[in-house]
Structures are given as C-alpha cells and as structure tokens.
C-alpha cells in the first residue's frame, strides 16, 4: 500500500505524536487538532512533537481543514491510496510514520471529538513516559452509549484475556514506541481489523504481549457524534465482533491460561467535578422489532450454532411479552461463547454467522434499556460489572467446548 504524504514543515523526528484518523471529517477535525496542539505545548513543551492526520483520501476537504487549523505544533497529513478505506489502514499508516520519526509515544484521538481538552493529551501521553506501554481511556458515558462495548467488547475481553479495560474500543489511546513495533510486526490481520476492528485488535495485542497497561481518567465525558444503537449499527458490529472471534485462534495459548480478571491501574485523578454525559435517544421500538425479525430470518442458524440448552432458553426469551422482556446475562454469555465456537468451526459463511448475531444483540440491548430505565449511571455501571462477572463465571463452559474442538481438530489432522 503506497500512502500519500504532505509534510509542509519537513519534520523528520519527534518525541511524541498525536494521530487523528479520519474519513470525511472536514467539519469536525479542527477542534481536536487545536486541542492536541495546545496539549502538546502545555504538557510536553520540552519534547519535539507533531500532529498527524491519517486519512482515507477524504473528498470533503478534511486535508485542508486539518492543515489550515492554526497550531504552533507542526502537522503532517498522510492518506491511504484512493479507494482504500478503513480506520485500521489509517492507523497502520500512522504507526509506520511514528516508527520512522522515532517517537517514544503516540496518542490517538478521534476526529469527531467535541469534549476533548488539552488535558486529554497529557493523560493519554504521560503514562507512556512512565513505563506504561498502552493507555486506554476511562470516561463517563451515558448508560445507553457504547452498547457494543458494554455488552460484547468489555465482557469478552475481560473474561477471555483477564484484564479489566473498561473502554477497549474507546477510540482514544496512548501507545508506546515498543508497542508500535509490535503492531507493525503483527501476526494477525483481517479485513475487519483493517476497518473498525482495529481498536479491539490494538487492546488485545497489548494484553497478549504482556505490555503494561493503564487507563487514563479523562474527567469529561466523551462527546462525539452519538449513534442510536437501534438505528446506526452499520458494519461496525461485524468488524468488532469478527476481530474478537478471529483473534481467539492465534491468541488461544494466552487466553486459555486466564482464569479470572485483574484490574487495570488508573492514571489522572484530581480533575474536579465530573461532567454528566449528554442524553442518548434510543429507539426501543426498533430494537425489539429487529430482534423479533431475527427469529424469522435466522432461527435455523441459531439452532445450528447454539448448544441445544442455549437454543431452548433463547426460544423461551422470544416468547416473553414485550413489556416484561428479559435477556438473562448467563444466556447472553453462553450465546457469545457458542458464536465464538461457530466462527472457528466455519471456514466460510462467517458474514452470515455474524449477521445472525445482530438481532440477538438488539434483544440484549433492548433488555438492558428496559432494566436500566430507572438506573443512575452508577447503577447501570454496577449492572455491567455484574454482567462481566457472569461472563467470567461462564468461562468453563467455553473452555470445555473449545477443548472438545481441540481434540476433534487433532483427530481430524491425524486422519489426514
């Protein structure tokens, strides 16, 4: 992949880089660029720094909006070739450039961030100069924001890899020079990873390589372009979930040794009163409808993928009245583990398999929305933590099924 670069200040070295991946973010990118520039000056003024926009050849003027944003810190624009899309591809371009510049630290922030302050750059960057290799964000989010994180990415990452990283696909990260090298020499890459699967891929690689991890407390909520999970799922779901399931094969030696999760250190307190996140409107009707439609469309696949007990329990759930709908967490954990098995047992049809999981996810989110309606943010958070514990307690179920698969694979290979 030959990337395009504009480096007006001819920067050849930097101690710290802030990278902003984008696609068609001309309207939004000036704000995070300004804040990144201020943060680098204020907190890393003794170091050489640069801001890099890693873009997908946007046609809306993202490049001009970025380069024309006034900052004292120099800027570089890089882009994938025309037609090559994906956040994962953007970040691989960024990592190659970070390596070339010899930077000790790389901070990544989303291009549509509205609530970023200079302090975010400090909190994501400073731990990298204190022997941490990977910094994940920790911010207050609305209870209905981040539903893929809360219901899939966080519980699966925690129960499989044994680290409690609350925002594993948060979009804003800090990465050390050593970890950048690990990413560039990656062992596992897929079409999903090249897109929105990149965040969970980075977090998982950091854990699996034993890199010291911390969470940076951002103080302010993440305010960006909010999405209604019932309306805007798009391809992100399959890319994130496909990456998680896909990595379970190559990372098996690691996660098979994990029993219970461990906490992750937190950096950056003392930020005063915590701001409340903005409300998230949710289309309950749409969530329930998409779950019910799934029954007609995917019941056959569900029956093939799920263990018979899980399928029977799911059929009970489908018969529940809408007002009293409940999707129990132990069932949800088993379903995700069954799907992980299904993903690995199939060579083709993985797209259909992931598509058939989407209605179940909508059912789970709908159940959460009903349950959390009167919960405070803190109570909703405690519910999510309890759900994670259920995933950890259900792990022996996965281990047993995966073990049987391992034996079957061994028998098959002997047969060949």
């Amino acid at each position, binding site marked *: 992949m030959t990337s395009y670069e504009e480096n007006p200040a001819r920067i050849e070295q930097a101690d710290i880089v802030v990278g902003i991946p984008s696609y068609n973010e001309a309207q939004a990118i000036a704000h995070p660029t300004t804040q990144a520039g201020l943060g680098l000056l204020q907190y890393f003024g003794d170091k050489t720094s640069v801001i890099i926009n890693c873009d997908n050849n946007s046609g809306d003027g993202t490049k001009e909006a970025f380069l024309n944003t006034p900052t004292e810190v120099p800027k570089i624009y890089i882009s994938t070739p025309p037609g090559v899309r994906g956040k994962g591809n953007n970040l691989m371009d960024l990592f190659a450039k970070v390596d070339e510049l010899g930077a000790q630290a790389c901070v990544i922030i989303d291009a549509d961030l509205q609530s970023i302050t200079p302090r975010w750059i400090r909190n994501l960057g400073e731990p990298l100069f204190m022997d941490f290799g990977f910094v994940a964000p920790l911010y207050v989010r609305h209870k209905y924001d981040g539903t893929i994180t809360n219901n899939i990415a966080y519980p699966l990452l925690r129960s499989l890899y044994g680290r409690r990283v609350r925002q594993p696909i948060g979009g804003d990260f800090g990465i050390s020079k050593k970890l950048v090298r690990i990413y560039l020499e990656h062992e596992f890459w897929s079409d999903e990873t090249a897109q929105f699967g990149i965040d969970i891929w980075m977090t998982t690689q950091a854990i699996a390589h034993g890199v010291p991890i911390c969470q940076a407390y951002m103080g302010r909520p993440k305010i960006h372009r909010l999405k209604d999970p019932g309306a805007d799922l798009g391809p992100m779901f399959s890319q994130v979930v496909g990456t998680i399931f896909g990595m379970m094969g190559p990372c098996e030696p690691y996660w098979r040794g994990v029993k219970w*999760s461990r906490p*992750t*250190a937190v950096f950056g307190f003392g930020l005063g009163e915590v701001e409340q996140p903005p409300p998230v409107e949710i289309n309950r009707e749409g969530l329930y409808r998409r779950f019910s439609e799934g029954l007609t469309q995917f019941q056959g696949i569900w029956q093939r993928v799920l263990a018979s007990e899980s399928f029977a329990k799911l059929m009970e759930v489908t018969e529940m009245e809408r007002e009293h709908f409940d999707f129990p967490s132990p069932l949800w954990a088993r379903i995700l583990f069954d799907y992980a098995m299904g993903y690995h047992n199939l060579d083709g049809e993985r797209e259909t398999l992931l598509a058939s999981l989407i209605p179940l996810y909508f059912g789970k989110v709908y159940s959460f929305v009903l349950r959390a309606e009167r919960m405070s943010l*803190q109570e909703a958070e405690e519910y999510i933590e309890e759900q994670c514990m259920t995933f950890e307690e259900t792990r022996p179920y996965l281990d047993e099924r995966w073990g049987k698969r391992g034996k079957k694979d061994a028998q098959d290979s002997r047969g060949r």
Partner: protein
Amino acid sequence: MPKILVVDDEEPIRLLYEEELQDEGYEVATAASGQGLLERIEQEKPDLIILDIKLADSDGLDLLQEIRTRHYDLPVILCSAYEVFKRDVKAIAADAYVVKSSDLTPLKKAVRRALEGRGR
C-alpha cells in the same frame, strides 16, 4: 504458601482475618496503619493485600494508587464497612471490593480469585 498482608486499624478485624485466612492455608502478616505501607510491602513481599479504606491515618484509596504505581501487578482487595466507596473511580484499580461482614465467604472467594488471576 501465598502470603497476605492485612492492613486495618481495627485490631479485632486484623485478628479475625488473620485467624480465618490462616485456616484457609495462607501465611498472614498484619499492619495497623497506612504509614510506611510501601516499605512494609518491600520487606514482606506479600502475594496479596487486604486494605481497609477508612484507616485512622490515611485513605485506602490513595494508598491503592501508590501501590499501583510501585507494584503494578500486586493484587489488592479493598475492604470497607461502607458500600459507598465502591463508586469512587479510584476503586477500579482494586482486584475486588468487599463490604465488611461477619460472613467472610465473599472475602475468601475474592482472595482465591485474585490469587488465581495473578497466574497470568
């Protein structure tokens, strides 16, 4: 035999935990205050710490932060008579949060899990 350091300013609690955890097969050391805790950790080299939050001379949540800075991977279980501190974001850095009770089953379960989890 895994070694546990119990940090609590109430003597009856220290004695109770010491006795019960020894019965479970652990070696137990105790400390009555948070002062000099980091040095004590260097000396004792515990495999796990049970840390009270409302110590007479220090705040267990602040101590947890200090422990995490120097001993990144050392399991720490926070113990308190109050549930409310669980909601403090600093408590996230603990392996578990246990509300004090005469029934030590949740504490023992948390100890077992934290020590098993440390294997990775």
